[in-house]
């Protein structure tokens, strides 16, 4: 009767002794074929585009890895510009004027043709937003959390009277969004395809047309590559690379960290930064029915006037999606635009629906605040 326990114990030991996942590692449990796609997708992700291979004529970066770097999929130090026009209750993303992503660079041919170094800022914009490059670890897991889970966390009328509401954003076609700082984009696949077009102006089968320049067509001769500028296969490989990037394993908590984890819930951070989410069905076993540390509800929350910038979809200027707290220990600046140099300052800048948790955090003793920050730095 005791013999069967030996392999079980060995299995548990093996699981417990698994090497922690580092930033940039793939998910555990990928098949050989999926691992191969991860490797090949990383090559596309790290590739550098030129005007001859599809870059521009407007762009923010020459490749995915230029902004999501150290390692691939991680943070970068780039800041980009977004612009929209808010005429309550309607948000105009200013697509007719180049919005919402305003590219900061031009190819030499476009500069020669129009004499511009960056995309003209839309004259109709009512606000400008600055955006840091987020890590993209764990996004494949976030992609698979069913909409029904998000809707279950939503409380737009604050029925439970905790001061925290939460509501989903919607894309231009009405589907529920979850990706991006305003939770505008419904799926990871679309976010990746859109990023090729919006960040590098690399057209692809999902977005086969180049953006106008301030509402005017691109001058003849400045975009030498034929559309679409990458193949569906290259797009799929990039999507798989990002999809299979694992969230880094949180550091082992010490006594302070464990105390901080408890305080994280007690002061109310966990009302929006939901500690764990569970994925739904997927053809990829490594992604299917997985409970993972997410620290987000993927919903919009009013964060107060001080943080407000642009609208997007149903998100008002003050609405932001709860940021997933993944790889916080690798971050050097915080919040959507990087304005907070420390985690403590990032918490103190929470307003609106986050003000209750912020005030309870500020009321903690110095030791307890340090413990909570120590917990966050383990993520």
């Amino acid at each position, binding site marked *: 009767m005791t013999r069967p326990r030996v392999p079980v114990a060995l299995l548990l030991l093996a699981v417990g002794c698994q090497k922690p996942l580092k930033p940039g590692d793939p998910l555990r449990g990928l098949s050989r074929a999926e691992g191969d796609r991860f490797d090949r997708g990383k090559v596309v992700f790290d590739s550098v585009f030129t005007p001859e291979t599809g870059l521009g004529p407007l762009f923010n970066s020459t490749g995915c890895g230029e902004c999501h770097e150290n390692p691939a999929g991680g943070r970068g130090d780039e800041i980009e510009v977004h612009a929209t026009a808010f005429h309550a209750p*309607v948000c105009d*993303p200013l697509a*007719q004027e180049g919005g919402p*992503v305003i590219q900061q660079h031009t190819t030499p041919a476009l500069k020669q043709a129009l004499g511009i170094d960056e995309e003209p800022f839309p004259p109709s914009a009512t606000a400008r937003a600055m955006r840091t490059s987020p890590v993209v670890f764990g996004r494949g897991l976030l992609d698979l959390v069913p909409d029904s889970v998000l809707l279950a966390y939503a409380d737009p009328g604050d029925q439970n009277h905790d001061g925290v509401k939460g509501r989903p954003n919607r894309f*231009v*076609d009405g589907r529920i969004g979850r990706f991006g700082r305003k939770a505008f984009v419904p799926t990871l696949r679309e976010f990746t395809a859109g990023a090729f*077009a919006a960040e590098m102006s690399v057209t692809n089968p*999902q977005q086969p047309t180049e953006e106008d320049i301030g509402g005017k067509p691109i001058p003849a001769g400045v975009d030498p590559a034929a559309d679409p500028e990458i193949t569906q296969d290259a797009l799929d490989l990039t999507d798989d690379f990002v999809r299979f990037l694992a969230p880094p394993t949180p550091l082992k908590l010490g006594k302070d960290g464990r105390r901080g984890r408890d305080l994280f819930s007690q002061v109310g951070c966990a009302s929006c930064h939901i500690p764990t989410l569970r994925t739904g069905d997927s053809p990829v076993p490594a992604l299917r029915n997985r409970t993972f540390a997410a620290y987000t509800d993927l919903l919009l929350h009013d964060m107060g006037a001080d943080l407000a910038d642009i609208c997007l979809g149903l998100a008002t200027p003050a609405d932001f999606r709860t940021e997933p707290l993944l790889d916080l220990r690798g971050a050097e600046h915080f919040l959507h635009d990087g304005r907070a140099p420390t985690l403590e300052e990032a918490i103190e800048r929470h307003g609106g629906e986050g003000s209750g948790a912020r005030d309870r955090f500020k009321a903690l003793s110095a030791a307890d605040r340090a413990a909570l920050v120590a917990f966050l730095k383990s993520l």
Partner: protein
Amino acid sequence: MQRKIRTAALTVILLVPLVTSAPADWRALNSAQAAPPYTYQGTVRAVNARTGTLELITGVGMSLRVVRMTTAPTTRVVAAGTTPRLADLKPGDVVRAECRRTAAGLVADRVEKLAVSAP
């Protein structure tokens, strides 16, 4: 034997022009007849009932585009349980437009206002 070869060669000479030219015309005709409708689902950016024009915001991810179309007297505008007019559409509404491409651009045959609740 030689007669058979001559006959075969003549057949090839006569048929080659037909085989090489016909498919192009045939494909063009076939594609015109079986052209799938252009269907766009997006947010109304602007609508002008007087000129019969409609602008939708569509796109993928953060890469958005404006699609412009016109309506015809035969264009059906529908919504759940009602039959609104084009003038009843307003910026911010989510619609699905079934269009066809003409020399003058996209023409909407059917515009359906979708019931998208504001959560």
